[in-house]
């Protein structure tokens, strides 16, 4: 930890939000919405989930009360940053018809309000790095994502209370934010305080407007302990060794038939997944108006229409669609983007209505390939 590491008391969060709003940011942070902690816009520390915990298991999510009054002591929020930086529904362009001509009147690229994220986790940051690679780092970058991303401020937090579906440590991550942040907070008890690490000059500038004191060696040791304890509390594991070749070789595995019989193709997993990036377009024209617009909306490889060409869908069976999703995420992604497409946030397991667990499915494929099982629930 560096010399510029500071201690901020809980009341500092309100000031931090005020400073960020004062700089023109919409502040997006964990907040309780419809019975779950979601990332959404907040206007003060009162909007944060003080004393709220969560229980996450396959197909199960419950809020709990905590007696320690901690504010960031939950596992991954649903939804994460994706819904802000890569919105589920956005304008691509709008045009106006006149006779058989048309002109483009708006491309939406300029309507971007900068966002400051407060309370995002290491898994979210690693998912963000994947979206940077997929959406901003290729021959044809997504102009709308790039515009939102380059304006974003990130105050991450150490994930001190991972959930039952978490396995970020299996996917190369961990509870402590490692990169891509302006500030990183670790929430500690006795006394309740935040150790704040500075990632960028902008982060230092923002923090200078909030009351803090220098962190001591004891504070820094307490962060190390909190991280080590959280690392031991991952609810699940996945063995990623040779995963690409394993899944490519397992294209005709009976495991796909079995999971295909359970999957409802509801698409929850792809909606909550922080790296899933598939979209479709919708053309909307208003009756009686000369205007029409094209919108881009999240899509899912679990829909039958997803791979539709003239003559029919190329993936009519559920097994084929689950295979596409899992093989893309864990195998093809490595060829495409030189990384795993899964960060181990566990959202797809938690929000699956029938509790399908990709760590268990991978373990079954490994077992059916004659390799000893490692991974799944602890």
């Amino acid at each position, binding site marked *: 930890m560096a010399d510029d590491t500071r201690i901020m008391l809980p009341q500092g969060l309100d000031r931090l939000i005020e400073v960020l709003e004062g700089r023109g940011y919409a502040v997006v942070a964990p907040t309780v919405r419809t019975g779950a902690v979601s990332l959404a816009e907040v206007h003060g520390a009162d909007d944060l989930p003080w004393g709220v915990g969560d229980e996450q298991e396959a197909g199960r999510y419950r809020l709990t009360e905590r007696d320690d009054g901690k504010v960031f002591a939950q596992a991954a929020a649903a939804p994460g940053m994706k819904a802000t930086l890569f919105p589920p529904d956005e304008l691509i362009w709008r045009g106006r018809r006149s006779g058989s001509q048309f002109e483009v009147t708006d491309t939406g690229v300029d309507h971007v309000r900068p966002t400051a994220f407060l309370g995002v986790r290491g898994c979210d940051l690693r998912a963000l790095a994947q979206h940077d690679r997929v959406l901003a780092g290729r021959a044809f970058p997504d*102009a709308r994502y790039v515009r939102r991303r380059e304006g974003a401020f990130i105050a991450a937090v150490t994930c001190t209370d991972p959930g039952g579906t978490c396995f970020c440590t299996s996917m190369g991550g961990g509870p402590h934010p490692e*990169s891509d942040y302006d500030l990183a907070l670790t929430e500690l008890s006795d006394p309740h305080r935040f150790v704040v690490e500075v990632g*960028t000059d902008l982060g230092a500038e923002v923090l200078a407007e909030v009351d803090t004191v220098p962190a001591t060696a004891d504070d820094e040791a307490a962060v190390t302990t909190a991280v080590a304890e959280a690392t031991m509390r991952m609810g699940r594991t996945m063995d990623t060794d040779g995963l690409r070749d394993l899944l490519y070789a397992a294209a005709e595995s009976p495991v796909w038939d079995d999971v295909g019989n359970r999957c409802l193709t509801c698409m929850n997993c792809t909606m909550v997944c922080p790296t899933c990036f598939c979209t479709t377009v919708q053309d909307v*024209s208003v009756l009686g108006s000369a205007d029409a617009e094209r919108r881009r909306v999240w899509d899912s490889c679990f829909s039958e229409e997803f791979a539709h060409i003239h003559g029919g869908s190329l993936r009519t069976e559920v097994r084929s669609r689950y295979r*596409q999703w899992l093989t893309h995420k864990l195998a093809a992604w490595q060829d495409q983007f030189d990384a795993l497409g899964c960060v181990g946030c566990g959202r797809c397991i938690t929000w699956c209505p029938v509790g399908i667990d990709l760590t268990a499915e991978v373990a079954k494929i490994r077992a059916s390939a004659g390799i000893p099982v490692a991974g799944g629930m602890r």
Partner: protein
Amino acid sequence: MTTTLDRPGHSVRDHMTPSRYRISRTRQDTRDTFTVVLEPVDGPMLHYKAGQFTMLDAFGVGEVPISISGDPTRPGPLEHTIRDVGAVTHALIAAPRGAVLGVRGPYGTSWDVADGEGGDVVVVAGGIGLAPLRPALMEIVAHRERYGRVVLLYGARTPEDILFGDELRSWARDRGVVVEVTVDNGQHAWRGKVGLVTNLVPRAGFDPHATLALVCGPEVMMRSAAQALVARGVPGDRVRLSLERSMKCGVGLCGHCQIRELFACVDGPVLGYDRLAPLLSIREL
């Protein structure tokens, strides 16, 4: 711990908004297939290579990927040959002369026909699959002396569905292209071949060890044609297929066109059979 926040670069060009092109004419090729001829409204004519496609937009209706079917060797209007099979394709072919369409692209890989110079070229087309191959054939006949034997094997449903009939005759008569046409259903006055186009591969005249093969048609036909070509001794990497997949963006972002690790829009549509064979052999991949 101090790290740098690597924010992506500024002012990236938007690839999702189309340029406007005006229809200078629309030619009916067969009962359900039309060639739409376009001139740019907003700027210069796009440059393309044989085998590439564009995203064609009918305002307020939608956007679809369509292969360019015109002559890449000569400056001229932009041509797309379109089969009337859905709402967007119908709007594109039904738009009147002078109407404005949206065009994004060109996108995707090319046939890279010049790789076949100094040897024979076999072109195998099924149905509307002849349209993406037309620019490749035009490139070959423009430099006919650079190639050995040039064979076009073309299968259509019926004699009435044969595309570019005048051109086929002129390539055969004046440009030394061996053109063999077969139909699935040859009643009426058809005196030519009847049957699968892939059945023409075993007896076609070419040197398998010095051949570039270009294949486009329904996927089942491409698989059989590629297998027949490889069985004759053409190496898999000298057999090229142009794939059809669902595409919503054309630039690798929407995810629809993926075939395992390949994005058909940017890694394809033209891909070597050596790479595709293991993927196309798995059902519903």
